[in-house]
């Protein structure tokens, strides 16, 4: 199933955090425009707001001012239930910590994504199997995360993020916890799958190698995104 072409438009987004004194402004008027298939790596020093930006793009956090639209939808105008549904169907997340449920097998972790949308049907199971095969984990599908290597866990996380054919794929240091060799392999696989999916890809990374693999980079420093308009 392929979705309608969805553009990502981020317009003058700011994010403040309240403190005892003046609010701490983490993002300062960030703007970004991407179309399906676009890929960008967001780089910058620690504390520059990269994860905050990713959380806002993934609707896990709200901007203080500014707007975000994915296609025709302003997700922050949706109610809680609609937002959850939006997230389940339009956004895929890959975390540095992979965040697999330790009590579920690799396959079950992958099937969490369609479960979030409603129910798991045969089509979902077939897609999960195909994706796991794609990443070389067919024979590990029935294993718990504790029985997988770091790279294998991250591959499961990547498959999970792609299960619902998201319009927007977000990755927060996807290879951050892997050694260089595993990181490269996972990074290659991730980018390949992302390209095949046609989703908009935003990767936050410290890895110069990964950023280079992604191609286009934007720098976020002091809350300001440079080279942010395409």
């Amino acid at each position, binding site marked *: 199933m392929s979705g309608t072409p969805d553009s990502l438009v981020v317009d003058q987004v700011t994010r403040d955090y309240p403190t005892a004194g003046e609010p701490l402004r983490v993002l300062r008027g960030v703007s970004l425009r991407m179309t399906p298939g676009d890929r960008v790596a967001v780089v910058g020093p620690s504390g520059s707001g990269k994860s905050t930006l990713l959380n806002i793009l993934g609707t896990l*956090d709200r901007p203080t001012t500014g707007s975000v639209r994915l296609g025709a939808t302003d997700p922050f105008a949706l109610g809680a239930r609609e937002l959850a549904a939006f997230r389940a169907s339009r956004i895929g997340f890959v975390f540095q910590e992979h965040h697999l449920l330790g009590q579920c097998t690799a396959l079950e972790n992958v099937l969490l994504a369609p479960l979030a949308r409603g129910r798991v049907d045969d089509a979902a199971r077939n897609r999960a199997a195909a994706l796991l095969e794609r990443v070389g984990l067919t024979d590990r599908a029935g294993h718990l995360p504790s029985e997988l290597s770091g790279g294998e866990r991250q591959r499961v996380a990547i498959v999970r993020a792609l299960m619902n054919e998201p319009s927007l794929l977000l990755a927060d240091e996807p290879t951050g916890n892997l050694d260089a060799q595993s990181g490269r392999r996972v990074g290659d696989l991730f980018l390949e799958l992302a390209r095949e999916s046609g989703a908009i890809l935003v990767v936050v990374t410290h890895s110069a190698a990964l950023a280079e693999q992604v191609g286009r980079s934007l720098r976020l420093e002091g809350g300001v995104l440079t080279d942010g308009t395409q």
Partner: protein
Amino acid sequence: MTSLGLILRNLWHFRRQNLAIAAGMAVATAALAGALMVGDSVRVSLRDLAIRRLGPVDHAMSTAAPFDADLGERLAADPAFAAHFKRCIAGLSVRGGASNRKSGAQAAQTAGVSILALDGWMDVAPGRCVINRTLAEDLNVAVGDPIDLTVPMLSDLPLDSLMARRQRQNRAAVLRVTVGTIADGDGWEATFSLQSSQRAERLAWVNAGDLRAKVVRRPRGRATSQPAVARVCNLLLVQARADSAGKEGAVTLNEALGRAMNLGDLGLEIAPVEPGTAALTSRRTYLGPGIEQAARDAAEAAGVQPQLVSVYLANAVNRAAADGRPAASIHYAVVAGLSEPPGGAVGPDEIVLNEWAAGADRLNARVGDTVRLSYYRRGPGGELVEQSSADAPSTSAGQGFRVARIVPMAGLGADRKLTPSFEGMTDAATIGQWDPPAGMHIDRKLADEAYWDRYGPAPQVFVNVRTAERLWGDVFGDLTSVRVPAASAEAFAAELRRRVTPMMGGMFFRPVKAQNVAAADGPTDFGQIFIGMSFYLIAAAGLLVALLFGLGIEQRSRQIGLLGALGFGRGRVRRLALAEAAALAVVGASVGLAGAAGYSWLVMAGLRTWWVAAVGTTQLHLAVTPATVATGWAAGVAVALLAVSGAVWRLGRAEAAALLAGAWGVPTMARRRGGRVGRVAGVLMAAGTVGLFVAPMAGGLSPQAGFLSGGGLLLAAALVLLATRWRAGRGSRKVGAAVVSLGLANASRNPGRSVLAVGLLALAAFSLVTVAAFREGEVSDTSRKTSGAGGFTAILQADIPLAGDLNTADGRLALGLDANDPIWSDATYVGMRLAPGQDISCLNLTRPTHPAILGVPEAMILRGGFAFARNIDTQQENRWLLLTDASADDAIPVIADDDTATYLLKLAPGDTMSVADAGGHAHTLRLVATLKGSIFQGQLLMADARFRSLFPADAGDGVVLIEPKAGVTPAGMAELRRRLSASLADFAVRVEPTADRLARYQEVANTYLATFQLLGALGLLLGTAGLAVVLVRSLIERRSELALLAAMGFAPGRRLLLVVAENAWLLLLGVLLGTVTAGLGVAPTVATGAHPLNFAALAASLGGVLLVGLLALVVAARLAARHYTPADLRRE
């Protein structure tokens, strides 16, 4: 993969934690369901006891006056009887005393013995008796031992009537028997009682002939209408068929009784008295109010004009001279009040004399002369007091009667048959042989022997019958006979038979088994009591579940954040968590049911043993019903879900990003909003506290209730404000130079958990302080007039009421005492009539349906004393006077003990209840005041005048209050009690210090409180053990943090101090909060001095709480002090 699959996977994966949560839920269920099972068990046990005690008896009729056993046979022969009932047995039932015949230290006597004779159902050989184990132990006797049973003598004549024989030898007799069998076990032979109470009766079954021979008095000169001794009984017991055991069956039975009854059963007889005249008379001398009216109506229906007759004995009939002084007198003349005196009707202030009385050598009276009468009346204490017609209220004869006419010595003018039989007088051949009742002084020199010789007791003086009723009418009747023409006697008899009912003779059946079974559903649900007592245990379990569940959520916060990031909506996440919790609740509650059975078994065992003082019986057993099991299970599930609801709700509010980062809790902005809500709620609750503290001043609440509930609300407010402060992060103090300050700051890092821990401990301290404050202390000085004993230091209870005033020489003589013994003058005595009924004190677990009632004499009302708790609106300082106030709706005012009114009767001043009088008629009683901690817990108090109208047959003093005179020592009072007990043994008396009675009541209250304390202690143990588990687990979570401190160079001792400071602060805060708020709550209770606080014991208890808490900390501290490895750092 399905939601159910995810839930099941989670349940198994986190099974260790879930096991702990389910265990907490199991404990809560065990306590809740167990308490409900206790309630069921007590209810079922009391019901079983009620059924067992009555054996085959379903309905019972018990009368004050005896009747012929033939009535039972006629009843059984009624056509309706066989269809609904199986058998009817007639018998005798009296209440008396017993003593063994041993001497010295072996001697024993007891009172309150139920003595029964039921030939046909319980056959006992002559000279033998069957007693139950309770009586055997009281008397220290075995089979073959002789015992004496003191029994009352039954009399037809009301004890308060002029001619009643009130002397000791006419009141009680001793039946000597040998113990043939001791009935053990719980069958009806050992436990029979018509009263609803769980307390063991002292029971003696005797041979019917033996008992009749003692209790039946055959007064001299009595009519032959009396039943033969061998037929006398006062009890009918009926066994019903299945469908007739209840109220409807009693109605059917009473209808059959009405058909079976004849006039003789009511002591009535219609017989010729003079040629052409028949008279309705009663062997009870007086016809009685109901029968008098029925006779009037019957005469009217038969078309006859009845001659109503009221006969009395005058001490003197005086003709007044012109100056009002007596000019001439005759003595001991019979006066007859007639509706048609000889010669025709007379006015209310007119009198008729026969020729003899008016004769020259007697009154020398002429028509128009003024005549006054003087005669004896019974005073409030039963003493004979001479009164004059000039002093009689409501007569127009204040100046004397005017002689209307003088009639010849013929017809009514000399009719000895107008006068009923008066034992000792009408049966005497001469006045010289008169044997008048005690207190009636006859100067035989003044008596007219010649008249007696010739005319016997024929009346010499006649007044209007209405005048007679006003002069000497009484509650037990005004008329001594009703005369009708002989030709109309049959018609009159038939009309009368149609109008009289068994209830006029106090004859009516009660569905005693159904009533007692219904009363077994006592006024207070034991299930609710034990839920209340187990409250802390349930709360501790619930809080522990909340703690553990919250901890589990915290541990899984990243997973929960992931679900949110994947698109699981908040509601769905909540439902998943709730479903997991529900699964745990189902398992926990199911396991808890097994614990509930064990808990309730343990409680029932405790009620039979350690706490037997509270329940007074060892007959309680475990009884579990399916409905209770289901309710307990459901309640356990509900409590469990309630416990986790907070965490589940917060779960839905948490932001996915924060959860993914491992930060459990709401975002700061929401915290601030929540903080405002929390502050407002806290302030409102604090304001509510002030309101509750102030409410008693406005009379809305008692000070105790206001302050206690205020204290509880203040505690809740403090916890809410604490939670709000900590959530807002303002509880964190600046981390200063000392590691202790870091520990104190850490105490608020997890506000939810910390508040729960503080709340758990505060509840423990709160309950400890309140229980300690409400424990009854030593009984206060009973010699104080304002004490619960009103200044009376001893109380005498007599099963055979005393017909003599202990304050007077005549009274003592009547009681068979040496009137001149100075010891009797060491005290003042206040006698009170007693209408037997249920003990409505805390010693009786059954519902009060027919309470015992005491008649309060006017002297005691005026005396005042005791301490009042509550009363209806009044300006009177002496609230006893409320008993004599008239009410618009004819409700009779009564006073009750405050605890009785609150917990058993469920009445407040102003409320009403219904009781039946001796004739079974319902009357409304209004509670006008309550007494604080009084000796009258077991009875209602009613003014004596009203008491007599409801219970005319309950004459004599059933209770005597004893007040020592000034200078009498406690040793002197002890000797007085001993002498009273020994000298009045024939009246089956119990004499005890009022302090002992108060202590018995207090023991019940203290037993319940001790049970509450024990259950609270269990809850405290659970709470602190759980706290320890939570502390240990939270430290395990923070191992990396502690490892970091170790890596940074914090020595083990300093890390120990950090952990101790953090948790000791929570411990201290909890205990302080609970103690201070409880202290405020119980301040008025302690201030009254009624409940002196044992500060040492309380301090020890609170110290125990701190000690247990500190022990938990030590375990945690040891964990903190161990060596950490770099691996622990990587866990961050």
